[in-house]
């Protein structure tokens, strides 16, 4: 078999493809984070918890109500979005005048509460969730067997990411959002209901996280702790892409997933840290991130 740098080609392509799947998750999650940061100036530490909620809701929907995956793909983000509205109205809005750091701390507290709540009901180990029958099975790509479901994840993520990007960059609603971010007072003076936009943005951002959670449910074990370690990596991705940049989040997310996959081939032990190393380098060279603007 052909070898690239001493690694057989099938292994390389296989890990790259898996990396692309992981990258899709990073992309959706960092997209939500970037949107929330852009609009609210809050680092939403609770993003991982909402991702977990999405996955857990999908499982609960199946377990208690017999609702299929496809239903939960729509319902879970809606439910989580509603939760997001409640949290934003009740808790977050008190912090907009304060230092960013309080937002980070508050959302950290929210994470602990959400995870603790679910953990007290479901323990720390995972519940299995079946791949929906329409997507079961694998395709033999020659160099590896790709489970069809993973292919679907990549496609769905790309569609959603570019959909959100188009919404923000190309539509009137997106223009209002961007205006509200840049100059809330002026935008409000024009009669736009900025607080409503803010609430909707937060709800939308966390709904995206929940969507990623539902996508993840059949692949990973649905457990209350599934968001915890992922969130730190997603932070690094957002920092690399640039804290408020949508395109930056998507590109960095996918890119870092692929880089992680490559690292797994050549130097598996470092695959956990490569994202942070990249982040450290980017911060030293281009402090605002690859696509970001200095604030």
């Amino acid at each position, binding site marked *: 078999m052909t070898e690239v740098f001493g690694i057989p080609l099938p292994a390389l392509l296989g890990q790259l493809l898996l990396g692309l799947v992981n990258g899709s998750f990073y992309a959706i999650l960092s997209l939500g984070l970037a949107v929330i940061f852009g609009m609210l100036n809050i680092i939403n530490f609770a993003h991982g918890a909402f991702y977990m909620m999405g996955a857990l809701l999908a499982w609960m929907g199946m377990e208690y109500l017999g609702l299929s995956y496809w239903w939960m793909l729509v319902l879970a983000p809606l439910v989580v979005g509603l939760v997001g509205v409640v949290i934003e109205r009740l808790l977050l809005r008190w912090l907009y005048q304060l230092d960013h750091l309080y937002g980070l701390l508050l959302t950290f507290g929210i*994470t602990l509460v959400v995870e603790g709540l679910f953990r007290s009901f479901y323990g720390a180990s995972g519940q299995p969730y079946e791949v929906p029958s329409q997507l079961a099975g694998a395709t033999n790509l020659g160099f590896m067997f790709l489970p069809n479901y993973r292919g679907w994840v990549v496609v769905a993520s790309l569609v959603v990411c570019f959909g959100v990007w188009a919404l923000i960059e190309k539509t009137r609603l997106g223009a209002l959002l961007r205006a509200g971010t840049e100059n809330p007072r002026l935008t409000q003076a024009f009669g736009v209901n900025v607080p409503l936009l803010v609430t909707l943005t937060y709800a939308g951002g966390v709904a995206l996280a929940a969507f990623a959670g539902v996508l993840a449910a059949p692949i990973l074990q649905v457990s209350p702790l599934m968001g915890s370690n992922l969130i730190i990596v997603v932070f690094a991705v957002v920092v690399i892409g640039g804290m408020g940049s949508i395109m930056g989040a998507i590109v960095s997310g996918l890119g870092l997933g692929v880089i992680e996959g490559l690292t797994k081939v050549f130097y598996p032990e470092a695959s956990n840290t490569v994202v942070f190393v990249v982040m450290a380098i980017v911060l030293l060279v281009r402090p605002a991130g690859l696509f970001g603007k200095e604030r």
Partner: protein
Amino acid sequence: MVKNPWLGYGAMFVLIALLPLFGAYPIFVMKVLCYALFACAFNLLIGFTGLLSFGHAAFLGAAGYACGYALKVWGLPTPLGLVFGALCAAGLGLVMGLLAIRRSGIYFAMITLALAQMVFFYFLQAPFTGGEDGLQAVPRGSFLGLALDDDLHLYYLVLAIFIGAFWLIYRTVHSPFGQVLLSIRENEARATSLGYDVSRFKLLAFVLSALLAGLAGATKTLVLGFATLSDAQWGTSGSVILMTLVGGMGTLTGPIVGALLVVLLENKIGDLGSWLAQVTGVQWFAGLGESVSLVTGLIFILCVLAFRRGIVGEFGALFARLRKR
């Protein structure tokens, strides 16, 4: 302003010294003291310099492993092991500080978090740490001829270390250096315009904070006899932030109170739950032990929304208001 705060501090230390005689479990109090030192060190950075580090667990863990390894494998005498641990943490603090100080605010926090994660994964892989199993069976040795296997001897050593470090922090804060740090916290731009090399001061504060956090970590390894990955996990960084926030950022005794509360919470909530279940007959309380995160998170949220000054801070403000009348 209190005339001589050391009267109050002195009373507090005497009380802590007498605790074992009242039947307190020495290991538990020592654990609280170590975390209190950790929180005080962290407070030096956030409370007095205004820098939020989300990666302080790296220093606790690094010193813990370094000290444990020095005592167990190299067989260094106990005082040297402790010093070695603290110095390793300070060195790590220098490296992390150099990278992180360039940015401020939220970026600073993110960088410290990411660097701490890198340190965590290094510890996970490195053979000398024992990975998931941890570094076990660290010997206690002796100090100035006093055998430390006796819990009581160790207790007074740990108390002495704590008092010494606390005094150091007190002197730092009340020195010209400390005044500059406060000015950086209040208005960095003005401090720069006054001619101070702000970056250098920040770095110094960072390294000092790392050194003391390391001392706490090394002492904790000595007390408990092991160093594990939990010390270097980002959850521990979150814990120390909570301790400082709840106790009172920018106060000297706040972190001590915060540490006591959080350690009590984490360790005794299971017992509290069982006792409540027994007393009230409501079975749900028995499961309280599982919900440490839940309660911790609620306290976090409450503090950020309503009690930003923390317990000691709020009491201080209350006394000030009462005195004005």
